[in-house]
């Protein structure tokens, strides 16, 4: 497969995962606005902003215990993360970039995949925060997330399992692992001391991962931070767990022949093995979970560069390497 096509599919996978990740978090925020305490709402906003590495509009978030202010603040923040075109990590931007990569690589995906994604894009294009806020913002996030799930379902039943498939999925799962570790880090960093508040925050974290029911089934309704982390990080049966994401990365990589540049190609495989071993065997029961997650996050970023070097931008005499960011027609940023 043409390197640039593979790279386009890889980025498409990344952006759509990013879109869905934001949808889940914002759905949670939108429903928190209905009945959760102001403190929890602000905690949620801080966690989102920290996890995507972005400053909220207006700088530091100060809790305002006035409901009206909280609502007004939340509107601004949700708009920034949903429809702000100048924010490259808003839902609007991520979906547009995912769709743009699909448009450029449309000959590499199935017609059904393209159509599903394009319809979703056209729908979101025509909306603004005002449109979704007054009725039910949750349902917008739920629908957008469901549309991406539909896209992925269509992909799994219609897409030819060539290298393009593996690269799309690699993008998807590497992005998921990175976002997941970043979210957990942000959660730990924003740590709450008060037991009751803390329980609420961990519960909302479980909901963000769609892991609340799984937690109840495996443990109990009693929220224990160590168990929550264990579920979200090392449980191979939880679809969104870090462990599951890394296993999927390894599986997709195994489906690909080694890249033309053997150095980074071998290094990438070794690195995936190492991260795999970490999440399977070396999760510290106690101790510094933050350090562990930071390490995984760094490794995922490194993996991205290794794959880029091995498959997309390997050196060829007489050929300029493709720019990863900001180049003509190339849509992606790490």
């Amino acid at each position: 497969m043409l390197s640039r096509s593979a790279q386009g599919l890889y980025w498409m996978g990344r952006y759509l995962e990013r879109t869905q990740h934001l949808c889940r978090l914002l759905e949670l925020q939108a429903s928190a606005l209905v009945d959760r305490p102001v403190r929890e709402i602000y905690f949620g906003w801080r966690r989102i902003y920290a996890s995507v590495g972005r400053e909220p509009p207006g700088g530091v978030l100060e809790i305002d215990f006035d409901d009206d202010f909280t609502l007004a603040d939340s509107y601004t923040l949700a708009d920034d993360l949903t429809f702000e075109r100048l924010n490259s990590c808003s839902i609007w931007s991520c979906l547009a970039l995912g769709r743009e990569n699909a448009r450029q690589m449309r000959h590499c995906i199935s017609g059904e995949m393209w159509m599903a994604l394009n319809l979703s894009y056209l729908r979101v294009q025509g909306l603004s925060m005002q449109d979704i806020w007054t009725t039910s913002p949750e349902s917008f996030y739920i629908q957008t997330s469901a549309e991406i799930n539909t896209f992925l379902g269509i992909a799994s039943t219609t897409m030819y399992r060539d290298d393009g498939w593996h690269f799309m999925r690699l993008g998807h799962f590497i992005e998921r692992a990175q976002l997941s570790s970043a979210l957990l880090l942000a959660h730990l960093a924003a740590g709450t001391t008060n037991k009751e508040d803390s329980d609420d925050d961990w519960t909302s974290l479980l909901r963000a991962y769609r892991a609340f029911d799984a937690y109840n089934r495996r443990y109990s309704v009693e929220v224990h931070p160590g168990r929550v982390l264990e579920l979200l990080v090392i449980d191979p049966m939880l679809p969104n767990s870090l462990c599951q994401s890394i296993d999927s990365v390894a599986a997709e990589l195994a489906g690909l022949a080694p890249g033309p540049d053997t150095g980074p190609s071998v290094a990438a495989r070794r690195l995936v093995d190492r991260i795999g071993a970490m999440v399977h065997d070396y999760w510290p029961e106690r101790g510094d979970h933050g350090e562990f997650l930071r390490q995984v996050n760094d490794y995922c970023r490194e993996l991205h560069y290794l794959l880029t070097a091995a498959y997309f931008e390997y050196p060829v005499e007489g050929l300029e390497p493709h720019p990863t960011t900001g180049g003509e027609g190339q849509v992606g940023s790490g």
Partner: protein
Amino acid sequence: MDFDAYDLDPSIYDEMFLPDGTPREHCGPLNETLTQLTSEELVGIQERVTRSFSDEGITFTVYGDDEADERIIPIDCLPRVMSGAEWRNIEEGLTQRLKALNLFLDDVYGKSRIKDLYGKPRIVHDGVVPDDVVRDCPQYREEMRGFSAPHGTWVAICGTDLVRTNDGFRVLEDNLRVPSGVSYMLANRKAAKSSLRRLYRRSRVREVENYGRVLLETLRELAPEGRSEPTIALLTPGVYNSAFYEHMFLAQELGAELVEGRDLLVSDDFVYMRTTTGLRRVDVIYRRVDDDFVDPLVFRPDSLLGVPGLIHAYKLGNVALVNAPGTGVADDKSVYAYVPDMVRYYLGEDAILENVETYLCRRPEDLEYTLDNLQDLVVKRVGESGGYGMLIGPHSSAGERDEYAEQVRADPAGFISQPTLALSRSPCLIDGRVEPRHVDLRPFVLHGRRTRIVPGAFCRVALRRGSLVVNSSQGGGGKDFWVLED
């Protein structure tokens, strides 16, 4: 829906109705269907068709100052229908014309030139085409001189613009460089089939959906010797090109990679592309990049869209380039005037498809005639396409004509003129009513080692009332075109 308000004008050929208002024989089923449908039903069909284009992202892109604007090419839901017999005549005419044009290109560039002091093409030496018409043509590529295209195929993909008047079909333009529009032919067909299902089945329409396969066969025939399973790539200028949708679409139809110049390199005179498993040799390049940009070592050195060394690899026969560079000399608006003479000269036959009468302003008597009759003529710039830089005499003001006349006087060789044609009209759905609009036709002729024509065309429509300009950049749209089985 009734046709009471349908404005039939006997001086203009109507594709559906005879001058007395009865439908042409082959349009009977279409007439019956339209008569049975209500205005609301037709509007519903039109909306569904337009929506399907938007949903599927069948667009052309217009780039403004800040962001890209993806536009849908307007489609009219009523098909234009043609009988099998009429089509056969067009098919023969197109085949004949392309054969002559390829012989002309071989004569202009190839080794068969007269071996006299000036190395003139035979056709120039024999006084059929004037020397300066060829030599001064901006699309003439001296770099290709002395080269003979494999199998004599300079033009493998041609999109000829045909118009019909009360006197029959005329060739308006030969597009021999990178003709576009075939994806709209296929998209229009898909839309028409799903919206007029019963009519389509009843009408026994000849299929065009195999275009991709036919194109693939054509490209394979041109692969370098000994490459039985050639790797084919479609070279696009990139996502910012207005026809990017078509490039992507054709790559998909061909099962080919869609490459940009930066994906390719020439090494030891072979062409390779960068893939996830290493460099892979490319055998056939269907290029949608203009001559000037295709190889910075030979043509424009500032081009970033091309591949250094590509032309050399092509000349050595290590890669096929479709179409060959330099073919623009044969679809130049001045050279066009001589195509019927070429047919006679190379093939010893009369042209089956006639030209539109053309006055070359480079000839003093034609210049005088043009300036004296500006109000009745269409004047075109030789180097322009897409309907730009044109004066349509009857639709112009005296001021515009004076201004244009100045330009023509300043550079007579840069202009040609033609009588304003009464292009035929076809029924279109406009604001819930069926009204006639002017149409043209762009069939696609493919030639590898033999000629293949899919029985269909991109039918362009001037959607504005009275307008003769069908170009999508200027308010034109498209409609499906049906060739019926006999």
